[in-house]
């Protein structure tokens, strides 16, 4: 309470409804209608909205056409299912929100890196993904040549002391995983601090999507994170459809839902197996590893690609299912789930596994809220948040998926989330396959509305994916912002390890299983 009082002391007038532009998931607005505030006022409104239960879903910059940067915030009101947009103009600096609202820290580091805007008073101002700046401006990090720096070239946080030691892991790892650098400050086996450095996978996806849509755009969107091809592909397709003022057919929506949920199940089941493997529990490790392929193959039966590429396209889906194929698919999924359930219960009923999972890598609810965590990792910490329900889109407006949460926020809770969510998803897929709506599965989207802005959110298997598309005067994509759920959750992983055991890191990491590519873009 004390904190709220200090924060509200000396602040300006309370936010009014006209301070923000209200919209909702997939509803395009006139880009010029987004209210632009003075930086100080912008900060006040964002913080006030946050105190009122709002959540920072995205914060990004784009050229304002006059040499400055227009910083736009997307605030999500989850219980009401609404989004609020507001903006501020900045030339070289703006007052940081991150100290009061830690969920903003990565967004502000991104702004500093991309646009040379210095967040004044940022508590952890370090480069985020070491990408080249998008505009000529002095480097806020004080680097001589930002284009020449490699990921990890910065002063790490260090704990000094005779008995403190540092362990550096990566970016090249012993397994076939993506590159990332982890630096632990340890006292014996105990971790004081974990610093995660990413950026090795930066490909410039947002830059490549600018000027679109063209023939490559869909494939680019699907490659933002290889294991979330349907999730990111769907977010992109939804944005394009909204901007062109068309809605996909009922059949397309249903098939997209099936693809998205199968992707979720495949990844969750694979992760359950990997979690079992990390603690050396063999039966579940090998069964779930094999069963993941069942779900991937099910996706391939729809679109010919195991990872769901070229399933979704703007306007609908590229591949349809006939009744016979739908029945076969349902039988396949049902059989796979029966095996999965047994393999998973083997693990969850084993006392040695539960003892290993329980109390490892705990993220308390308050911390998860503060960091703005999303997806199963947030729900495992008791944060009731799911785009499929809160900002329902497509088929989820008609068919609801129950949201489950846990309380403990430990590895066991995150593992349980994977199992329970998979179960709901399988039910959803079987239900959809049984009553697939008729009609066409694809329509051609028209030209995009010029000067429009749309926020397109999808609950990918890791959590909330948010794409923000802004069109220019010619109806091309003038700015495209991608936010992968990992963007929020990486800091959650770092905090989960605090005061934990260094030997627990691989298990914690697996329980989050965050995307490097999705973060690095």
């Amino acid at each position: 309470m004390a904190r709220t009082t200090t924060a509200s002391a000396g602040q300006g007038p309370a936010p009014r409804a006209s301070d923000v532009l209200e919209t909702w998931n997939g509803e395009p607005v006139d880009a010029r209608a987004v209210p632009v505030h003075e930086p100080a006022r912008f900060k006040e409104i964002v913080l006030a909205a946050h105190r009122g239960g709002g959540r920072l879903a995205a914060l990004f910059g784009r050229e304002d056409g006059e040499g400055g940067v227009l910083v736009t915030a997307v605030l999500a009101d989850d219980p009401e299912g609404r989004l609020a947009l507001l903006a501020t103009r900045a030339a070289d600096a703006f007052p940081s929100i991150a100290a009061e609202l830690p969920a903003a820290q990565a967004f502000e580091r991104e702004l500093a890196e991309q646009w040379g805007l210095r967040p004044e008073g940022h508590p952890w101002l370090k480069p985020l993904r070491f990408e080249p700046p998008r505009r000529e401006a002095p480097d806020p990090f004080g680097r001589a040549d930002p284009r020449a720096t490699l990921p990890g070239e910065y002063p790490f946080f260090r704990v000094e002391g005779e008995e403190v030691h540092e362990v550096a892991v990566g970016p090249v790892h012993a397994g076939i995983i993506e590159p990332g650098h982890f630096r632990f400050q340890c006292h014996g086996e105990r971790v004081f601090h974990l610093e995660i450095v990413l950026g090795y996978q930066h490909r410039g996806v947002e830059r490549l999507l600018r000027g679109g849509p063209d023939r490559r755009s869909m494939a680019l969107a699907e490659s933002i994170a290889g294991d979330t091809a349907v999730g990111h592909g769907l977010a992109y397709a939804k944005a394009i459809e909204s901007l062109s003022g068309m809605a996909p057919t009922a059949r397309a929506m249903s098939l997209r839902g099936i693809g998205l949920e199968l992707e979720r199940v495949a990844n969750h089941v694979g992760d359950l197996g990997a979690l079992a493997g990390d603690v050396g529990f063999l039966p579940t490790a090998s069964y779930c590893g094999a069963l993941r392929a069942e779900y991937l193959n099910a996706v391939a039966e729809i679109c010919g690609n195991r990872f769901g590429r070229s399933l979704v396209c703007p306007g609908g889906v590229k591949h349809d299912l006939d009744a016979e194929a739908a029945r076969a698919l349902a039988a396949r999924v049902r059989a796979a789930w029966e095996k999965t359930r047994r393999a998973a219960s083997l693990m969850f009923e084993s006392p040695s596994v539960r003892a290993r999972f329980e109390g490892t890598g705990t993220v308390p609810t308050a911390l998860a809220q503060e960091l703005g965590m999303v997806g199963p990792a947030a729900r495992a910490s008791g944060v009731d948040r799911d785009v499929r329900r809160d900002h329902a889109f497509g088929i989820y407006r008609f068919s609801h998926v129950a949201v489950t949460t846990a309380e403990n926020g430990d590895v066991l809770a995150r593992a349980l989330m994977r199992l329970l969510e998979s179960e709901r998803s399988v039910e959803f897929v079987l239900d959809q396959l049984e009553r697939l709506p008729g009609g066409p599965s694809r329509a051609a989207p028209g030209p995009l509305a010029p000067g429009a802005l749309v926020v397109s959110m999808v609950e990918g298997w890791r959590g909330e994916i948010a794409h923000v598309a802004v069109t220019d005067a010619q109806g091309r994509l003038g700015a495209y912002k991608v936010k992968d759920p990992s963007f929020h959750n990486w800091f959650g992983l770092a905090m989960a390890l605090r005061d934990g055991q260094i030997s627990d890191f691989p298990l914690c990491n697996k329980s989050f299983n965050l995307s490097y590519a999705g973060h690095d873009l």
Partner: protein
Amino acid sequence: MVLRTALHVVALLVLPPLLLGVINRVKSIFGGRRGPPLLQPYLDLAKLLRKGAVYSRTTTWVFRAGPVIGLAATASAGLLLSMGGAPAPIAFAGDFVLFAYLLGLGRFFTALAALDTGSSFEGMGAAREVTFASLAEPALFLCLLVLARATGSLSLSGMLGPDLDAAWSSAAPGLLLAAIGLFVVALAECSRIPVDDPNTHLELTMIHEVMVLDHGGPDLALILYGAAMKLFLFGALLSRLVLGHGAGALASEALFLLGVLAFAVAVGVVESVMARLRIVRVPQLLVGASVLSAFALVLLLR
């Protein structure tokens, strides 16, 4: 007698990799897989021996000596161990102390070689290994003391000799407890689940494996062979302790081999149905083994 002794030396040198093959097969069956061939560990060793070795410029002779001393110490310990009831090639009063410390010497040099690399991972692994070894040692000694007390002998050949079969009829509860304690020590000493996971690729969770990350080629072959031999030694100890010996030399030898293979199967089963313990819990397991053995000793002393 000479023939049986020679047979034991041959068994000691030839059989160890087979145990790894048996463990892997059991684990594969539990995992619903076919698994690698039983003799795969031999092929792996042959492959490694044909490779060249790479040495970091920051390492010294200690790094190269580690694997050699490790294997030599384990093999020497094997010469002290009586197998299948026949006396060991080398036997004298108090040789069980030498047995325990030959294993300790091997570990000491493995840890030293790990520290020699200066890698933070290997330092961490060495710290874990010696911490857990210092807890496993009392348990091992208590088990051996139980055997010494039960048979009235201070030599491993006597402790595992014909007197042991007589002791089972008078001191079965104590010996059984000691056998359980020894099995736990074996799992810890041979870095098996639930203490360590020999198959993991996660450097931060490893204990034994992380110490040998920088070894390659023939050095790694020596280390793997030495580790398998250590497993064989514990298998031999437990096989003799639990199964006793049959009527006649041939039956004894057959029973002995059966026991060693059964030990490998048991290790495989444990690895298949259990997850690894959290590292902070490992000391509790080892202290538990010590307490069990101490209790066994109390039962014998009363």
